[in-house]
């Protein structure tokens, strides 16, 4: 429901050291700091960058948080994930 909350979470994960650490340790607990709908929470936790951009999130944020905290932080894998159908549903 709150695009703003998602952008705040992704921004913090892109630039704030303490947020990155907390997210890496326990993504679900970290994301509870933000007022996210369940599907938004899931998109962020699962790095579903295609759905996040479809939601209206600024692509600089999806790229930034990917580079900072994704399991495989390469741009190649980011682009692959962006162009692939969502793991959670239809493309």
């Amino acid at each position, binding site marked *: 429901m709150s695009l703003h909350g998602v952008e705040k979470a992704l*921004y*913090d994960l892109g630039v704030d050291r303490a947020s990155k650490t907390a997210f890496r340790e326990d993504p679900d607990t970290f994301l509870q700091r933000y007022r996210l709908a369940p599907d938004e929470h899931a998109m962020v936790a699962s790095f579903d960058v295609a759905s996040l951009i479809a939601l209206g999130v*600024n*692509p*600089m944020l999806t*790229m*930034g948080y990917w580079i900072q905290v994704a399991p495989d932080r390469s741009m190649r894998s980011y682009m692959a994930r962006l162009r692939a159908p969502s793991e959670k549903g239809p493309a």
Partner: protein
Amino acid sequence: MAQIVAAYVMPHDPIMFTHPEAPAEDVRARVAAAYGEIARRIGALGATAAIVVGTDHYILFGPQCLPQMLIGVGDVEGPIEKLPGLPRGPIENHEPMAEAILAGGFADGFDWTVSRALTVDHSISIPYQLAIQPNSGVRTVPIYLACGVRPMIDKARAFALGASIGRAIAAMHSDDRVVIIGSGGISHWVGTAEMGTINPRFDGMVLDCVERNDAASLIGLSDALIEREAGNGALEIRTFLCAMGAVGRAKGEVIAYEPVPEWVTGLGFAELRAV
């Protein structure tokens, strides 16, 4: 009296630093030569000050505070990013000039957000380190325009802001010779599925507008058209408009253009020499 002697436009592509050897050697050489040529011209013009108009990338300013236009008056350093070959360090601020631009802007009805302690990002640091720093003694005024995060600054407003900057410089009782750099573009998609696409036709059109000092045509481009044709990164041409507004009457020259897929950007360089 202080005067703006030239405006330049140039890109600030961080992938030049993270993947410096990705493009062919001749491409890399031509890009390096373009930055070097502008550095040389800034020296030859006897510049004492440089205004660098950069763009936010959702790095420096978060969702809690998104300014339309920001000026650094005080301590300046950067870049905030760790980029190989782009060391972090202090940037000497031309404080009297920044204060003059600020005061002139307020008087002209521009609501500048002010930074007294600014850590810049690559959009300032790349032009600074490649084109300004090679000339010793040139002090810098960093400016940010909202180009990447909504609400973006209106393009006519960016041009009018440049005109306000130009008037403030012209009213300064100093012998400063000033260059202003519009940092950004041209075509590139940042973080989207189209990333890697380049539109040389669009880029050529933009550079042609700069060369002809035709701000009106750039102002007339809708954001929807720019994003569709040249990507969200091309919205950064707002910095070109600010530089064009500041320099006023000028003779234009395209210095270089390289479409570099490995660096996901159409890299354009041009000069507007004040006449």
